[in-house]
């Protein structure tokens, strides 16, 4: 035993976040008291973050199979076929806690981590999205956090040369104590070249490559990500890692190169819980063991202990298993990129993890009980007592909107709905030369290239969505709505939705009402994914987003990936030209519950979120895909937060050419005006088209409500009720000014 190590007992186990029964199980598995490094290993591997112990029972409900699925959950990322022997590999992951403590590095390493999950699968990362949520911008701390997170995402993504092509930026008081930073990445690989994280082949070398190991990020997974914040959260700053995008960039190129040699058997990044988690997971998947010598691990700091070496979360490190005898081939490639590379161990047949340090054995644990047979909990769930109360909304008692134009201006000026150009202007959107639709549209669209650089006629459509207010009011419906919106956004480009990934951000699962929210969200995700035939192929759960007892609203972030082929024909979201017919697809109902209008103009966050009709969504998606392919759709924009009036305004703000393209529309006044203008009924899309008759015919035969509502042109946004009453008549330039200045005004002045 290392003389500096504390004696291992129940008290120390508790300090490590282990429960009494978990500690007893550890002693039973080993048949003895664990060593200090062994205790550390169990504590991270069995942490909520690594083991999914509270969630895995529920996640099994999710549909994960489908015709296009090549790899479902369980590997570093999921993969779907995109035809012609190519695959898209994608995943979204949270980096919430670190980003709250140190926004720039927290967000940067979140990007770095998700990139490694993708290229570990053999795929070249081709596009990133993110979903970031903060408290209100009136709070200077949240202005600082936003600036830091954006600088971190940009600083890392730009330097590694992966474009950031979309995402969402949200502000809501529930994130005051816990911001959310969810990072998504998608990569492309030949379908028969997908790599798995498996330590197969007894006698094969275990190779460490990348950055050296330091003392940073120890217990990031167990203590930081798997417990609530207290007021003293900043003391945990040392558990946040520091990112080095330059090394990551070299690592991407070196790993892709080394994987092409055929010498690699399995590969995994050292993410949460570092060397420990990666080696255990690789051995567990292959049913093998590993013996490792810690003295061979490249070290950044002097006198590191086995405990530190095993638990460090230093970034930009990979663990590979290569074919025996081909070590030199692997070494030469990493050396060419000036990256550390060393054989640290061998694959063994006995199913045990044996670690030596200074000539002594410091860890000897059976692999399987640690990795695969980690605890599984069935936590109690109970509907929050306030839920039904919050869902009550008497529309008749809501004062009618006295000034619709003023309401529109106020909505466009609200940070949630305003232009996010201030954010995405700091991201490289063009690197890799495939960006067909850059940030600002409903979904991003990225053309696929072969690894040799030749362009294909395929493009990936990418969207990420969640309306946390809907999820707060009804986590089931809110999650169904998030799936429907993400999938609809993808279809608005003309792409066929393929599959989903998700990042489930919740409070403390030990509280029954949080567990209830979680279960409802998983049920919603499952039902919606099944109905829309978009399986969930990867994902991540982030619990304990809770500070001083105040949990975030349930935030199941959903990302959808679609395929457009040929990619030369796609629809943008804003009106491309004057003189086009404007068609509204979908049904508008008297739904104001959970709407932005109700929150901003009436100060109410109540009611039931709007109904989601998944059968309707399916038909809508099919029509969008067909309509774009046949040239019936010039632009398509999903109607979401802020409703129809905000969506119309956004359609007028075509990028780059001010004052944009105006529009005149007319709606029936069978509903109260604010329901038409600001209600957030789902399943609706605004189309501009030169072929209105063809589109209307197709909609009719598909049984989709569709109505021609007006025409593009002029420099004003004019909305009338059916009887001709003028509801809104505003200059698009003035509206654009409000919308585009809303964030800069709050952040720079």
């Amino acid at each position: 035993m290392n003389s500096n190590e504390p004696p291992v007992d129940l008290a120390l186990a508790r300090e490590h976040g282990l429960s009494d029964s978990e500690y007893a199980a550890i002693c039973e598995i080993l048949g003895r008291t664990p060593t200090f490094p062994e205790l550390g290993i169990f504590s991270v591997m069995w942490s909520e973050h690594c083991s999914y112990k509270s969630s895995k029972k529920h996640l099994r409900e999710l549909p994960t199979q489908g015709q296009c699925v090549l790899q479902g959950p369980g590997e570093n990322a999921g993969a779907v076929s995109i035809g012609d022997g190519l695959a898209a590999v994608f995943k979204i992951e949270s980096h919430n806690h670190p980003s709250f403590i140190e926004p720039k590095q927290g967000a940067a390493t979140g990007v770095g981590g998700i990139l490694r999950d993708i290229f570990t699968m053999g795929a070249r990362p081709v596009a990133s999205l993110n979903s970031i949520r903060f408290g209100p911008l009136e709070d200077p701390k949240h202005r600082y956090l936003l600036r830091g997170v954006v600088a971190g995402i940009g600083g890392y993504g730009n330097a590694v040369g992966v474009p950031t092509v979309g995402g969402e930026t949200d502000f809501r008081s529930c994130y005051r104590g816990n911001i959310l930073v969810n990072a998504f990445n998608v990569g492309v690989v030949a379908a028969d070249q997908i790599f798995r994280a498996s330590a197969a082949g007894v006698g094969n070398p275990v190779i460490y490559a990348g950055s050296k190991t330091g003392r940073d990020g120890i217990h990031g997974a167990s203590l930081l990500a798997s417990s609530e914040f207290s007021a003293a959260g900043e003391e945990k700053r040392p558990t946040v890692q520091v990112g080095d995008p330059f090394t990551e960039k070299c690592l991407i190129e070196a790993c892709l190169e080394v994987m092409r040699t055929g010498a690699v058997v399995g590969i995994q990044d050292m993410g949460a819980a570092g060397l420990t988690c990666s080696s255990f997971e690789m051995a567990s998947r292959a049913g093998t063991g590993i013996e490792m010598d810690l003295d061979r691990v490249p070290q950044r700091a002097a006198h590191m202990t086995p405990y530190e070496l095993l638990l460090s979360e230093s970034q930009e490190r990979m663990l590979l298993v290569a074919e025996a005898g081909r070590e030199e081939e692997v070494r030469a490639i990493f050396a060419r990129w000036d990256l550390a590379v060393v054989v640290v161990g061998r694959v063994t047949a006995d199913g045990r993890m044996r670690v030596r340090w200074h000539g002594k054995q410091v860890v000897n644990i059976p692999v399987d009980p640690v990795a695969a047979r980690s605890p599984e909990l069935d936590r109690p769930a109970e509907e929050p007592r306030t839920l039904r109360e919050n869902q009550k909304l008497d529309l008749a008692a809501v004062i009618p909107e006295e000034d619709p134009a003023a309401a529109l201006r106020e909505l466009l000026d609200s940070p949630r709905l305003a232009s996010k150009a201030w954010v995405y202007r700091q991201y490289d959107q063009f690197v890799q030369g495939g960006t067909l639709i850059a940030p600002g549209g409903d979904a991003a669209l990225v053309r696929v290239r072969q690894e040799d650089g030749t362009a294909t006629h395929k493009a990936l459509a990418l969207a990420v969505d969640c309306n946390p207010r809907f999820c707060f009011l009804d986590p089931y419906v809110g999650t169904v709505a998030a799936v429907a919106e993400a999938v609809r956004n993808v279809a608005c480009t003309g792409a066929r939705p393929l599959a989903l990934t998700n990042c489930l951000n919740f409070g403390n699962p030990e509280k029954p009402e949080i567990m209830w929210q979680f279960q409802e969200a998983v049920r919603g995700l499952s039902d919606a994914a099944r109905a829309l035939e978009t399986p969930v192929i990867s994902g991540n759960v982030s619990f304990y987003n809770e500070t001083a007892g105040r949990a975030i609203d349930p935030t199941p972030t959903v990302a959808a990936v679609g395929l457009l082929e040929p990619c030369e024909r796609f629809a943008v979201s804003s009106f491309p030209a004057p003189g086009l017919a404007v068609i509204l697809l979908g049904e508008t109902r008297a739904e104001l519950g959970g709407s932005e209008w109700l929150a901003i103009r009436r100060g109410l966050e109540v009611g039931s979120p709007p109904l989601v009709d998944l059968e309707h969504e399916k038909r809508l998606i099919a029509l969008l895909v067909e309509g774009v392919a046949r040239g019936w759709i010039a632009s398509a924009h999903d109607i979401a937060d802020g409703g129809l009036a905000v969506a119309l305004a956004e359609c007028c703000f075509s990028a780059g050419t001010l004052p944009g393209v105006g529009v005149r529309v007319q709606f029936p006044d069978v509903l109260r005006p604010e329901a038409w203008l600001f209600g957030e009924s789902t399943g609706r899309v605004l189309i501009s088209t030169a072929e209105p008759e063809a589109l209307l015919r197709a909609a009719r035969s598909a049984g989709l409500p569709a109505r021609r509502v007006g025409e593009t042109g002029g420099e004003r946004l004019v909305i009338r009720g059916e009887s001709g009453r003028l509801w809104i008549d505003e200059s698009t330039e003035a509206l654009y000014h409000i919308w585009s200045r809303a964030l800069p005004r709050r952040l720079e002045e």
Partner: protein
Amino acid sequence: MFAVLQFPGSNDDRDMLFALKSVLGVPARLVWHKETELPPNTQGVLLPGGFSYGDYLRPGAMARFSPIMAAVLRFAEAGGLVLGTCNGFQILCEAGLLPGALRPNRTLQFICERVWVRVENARTPFTSRARAGQLLRLPIKHGDGAYFVAADELARMQERGQIVLRYADASGAVSEAANPNGAIANIAGIVNEAGNVFGLMPHPEHAVEPLLGGGDGRAILGSLLDAVRQRAEVRA
């Protein structure tokens, strides 16, 4: 044959290669920074954008010491055509092949957007396909793009026609409002005194296909191609 240099941290190397090979249809290959010689039939050298050596210390400050740079220096001194975009421009300044330096953007933020640049000198091997005064729509994406040079040197550069591109607005006016990064005199691109080395912050390689937001970058890469062909004919 064009040589696209690949430094550790280069990002736009593959995009430059794609623009040259797939779009313009000219032979090109990546040349690793640890090489000490350019390929024997090199007719033009391109330094791509990115974050060579992570931009640590200062953008371009370390890449200039890469072994290949000695060969690039010899190539340029012999009159060879050299084009650096973004990080490539920064490396050329650090290497002393171009005057001046690139400072952090005045907002201290990374900026990615499409901008207008006005062609100030169309009589260079890099702008011959454009007219003087022509506007090009090109993307910029950089954190350190504010060109700076001392006033006396700037005056000399102006006299010699070394200012090739300036940031302008959509009407062609070179104004403070159209200056995205705080570059002195709105400078977006310059050539050396001999006119064979060109550095610019915008990315012509990301504007070669109308489908992907415009083809104005061809004016620049196409000019380089013409110049190389002309030289080959003269030699023949």
